[in-house]
């Protein structure tokens, strides 16, 4: 696991539960905004990832691009006000380990485009907070941060 880039946070998944931090379980990097706010109690996290270390693909593979395009095209809209947040799971600056969509209530998980890459498991969690979904159409990542996190905007107070 590479050093944590700005805008990222660690999240671990052991196959049944999610944990903030690097363990127990397999460690991923997520969009940090999902953990930096008032958590939604008892949320439903659809974890489209596996705890196995070899379950990874290159972020730039066309199918990974396409599931993010599908999220922008219709998945986010389909979730409506039930959506709490979503994040992809980065293993490093180049590898994709899955994605998590978090909602306030059970939704049509069978339609989750990210489940086309790795199968989904619903996990109840108190970790996640509400994040405004990405505006699109940007699906590229910002310096390796897990989509949809990150920005190239200068930090407040930085020299222009």
């Amino acid at each position, binding site marked *: 696991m590479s050093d944590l880039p700005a805008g990222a946070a660690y999240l671990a998944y052991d196959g049944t539960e999610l944990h903030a931090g690097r363990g127990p379980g397999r460690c991923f990097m997520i969009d940090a905004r999902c953990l930096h706010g008032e958590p939604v109690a008892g949320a439903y996290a659809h974890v489209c990832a596996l705890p196995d270390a070899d379950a990874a693909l290159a972020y730039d593979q066309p199918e990974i691009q396409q599931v993010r*395009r599908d999220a*922008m*095209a*219709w998945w*986010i*809209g389909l979730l*409506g006000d039930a959506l709490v947040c979503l994040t992809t799971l980065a293993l490093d600056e180049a590898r994709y380990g899955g994605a998590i969509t978090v909602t306030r209530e059970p939704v049509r998980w069978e339609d989750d485009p990210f489940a086309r890459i790795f199968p989904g498991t619903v996990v109840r969690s108190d970790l996640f907070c509400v994040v*405004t*979904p990405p*505006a*699109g*159409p*940007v*699906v*590229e990542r*910002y310096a390796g941060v897990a989509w949809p996190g990150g*920005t*190239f*905007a*200068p930090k407040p107070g930085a020299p222009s």
Partner: protein
Amino acid sequence: MTAATVSLEPGQRFPDLDLPDHTGRDRRLSEVAGGDPVVLVFSRGWWCPKEQRHLREMTALQDEFEVAYTRLVVVSVDAPEVQSAFRAGLGARFVFLSDAERRWLEPLGLLEETDTLHEPYRPTAFTLHPDLTIHRAYDGNWYWGRPTAEELRRDMREISRAVRADFER
């Protein structure tokens, strides 16, 4: 054109619009920009054949915008649910902002005065720096006044060159 209370000339800062998006979520233009260059399109609405044609051209560009850290935003007076259906029909993955209440029409001076039925926006487009400074403005009342794909590529290149420190290495 109605008298605007803000200047929409190149070099001026575009107002930080606060409008619901096509899903009904409240957005601000600066948040949607997210630190990236923006193409901001004011559209009459889904019913106009010119808008349908022009937005199909914008949709054809979105694959490039996706991989180039640039944003496309459309503003119209259509309600969010109408925009959402129109967006789906286009196959668009960018944001539509709804000014169904017509709050920004007068301050921006962009009322389409020839359409007394819909009271829509005059078709205009702006290319913006990440901080919403206007780079170039286009008046598309006559269809050929709208920016072409090549003009938008040129504008995005010019803005990116100005704001990305490592654009030319």
